[in-house]
């Protein structure tokens, strides 16, 4: 049997669109554009956190606070957060469309993915921008060294 599969970027055949936005096309483009940016952001993240110095053994509050006190790493992490969660959520949506067989199961699974993505984007963004590297009343040996100068 010979059959032709539609390209993944095609709009749904069920709802032939003559006008309006082709969201599947923009999703397809988003996966590629965000993917290229994420390769740079995540490889940089892994290099700085796992390869430089003592790697994973050096990770603690003082290390993370030292990074997140710097706007450069704040924006790096927030960009990773948004790009990766939407990229991953859209990828999971593709899998649900492929493997969930009923309309109800697809609806439940895609709602759960959307909820997880939205909640974690809000949580992560709030953490990065409301974060205090030198919280009051905490033991000084757990904090970054620059807190002593305050």
């Amino acid at each position, binding site marked *: 049997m010979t059959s032709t599969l539609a390209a993944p970027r095609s709009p749904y055949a069920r709802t032939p669109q003559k006008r309006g936005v082709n969201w599947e096309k923009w999703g397809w483009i988003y996966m590629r554009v965000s993917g290229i940016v*994420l390769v740079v952001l995540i490889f940089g993240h892994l290099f700085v956190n796992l390869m430089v110095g003592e*790697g994973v053994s050096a990770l603690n509050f003082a290390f993370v606070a030292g990074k997140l006190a710097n706007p450069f790493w704040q924006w790096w992490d927030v960009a990773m957060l948004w790009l990766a969660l939407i990229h991953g959520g859209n990828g999971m949506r593709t899998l649900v469309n492929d493997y969930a067989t009923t309309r109800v199961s697809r609806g439940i699974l895609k709602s759960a993915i959307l909820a997880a993505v939205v909640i974690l984007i809000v949580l992560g963004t709030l953490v990065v921008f409301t974060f205090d590297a030198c919280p009051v009343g905490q033991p000084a040996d*757990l904090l970054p060294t620059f807190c002593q100068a305050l």
Partner: protein
Amino acid sequence: MPKSAGALTAQRRTTSRRPAGTLYRGREGMWSWVLHRITGVAIFFFLLVHILDTALVRVSPEAYNAVISQYQTPIMGLGEVALVGAIVFHAFNGLRIIAIDFWNAKYQRVLFYVVIGLWVVTMLAFTPRHLINVFSH
């Protein structure tokens, strides 16, 4: 032989073996697709956990340090090798997908072996250093 005749022969040979319109059935095209899905799902679930554990910096230094120290155990250290392996494959194979979508799909098979080669090189650079960091502390 004129170029078009060669292309036609290649096309006839190809269409006799697999359905038209897909690179994703059988051999390297399919296995790269399978691995891309599996690594993608694994990375997604790690990402959910990783955002929650990092959010503990907003709770207290003790809470964050208690959880992050779990990432520094030998078993989790090996898990981090698997995680980085999944990320590196997904990254390089994603670039391969972009190349065959925008450039030329006829190189997809050789590009799969380029992905495997780059993956091996990257993991050879990462794994020894990471395991020394995990097991020497």
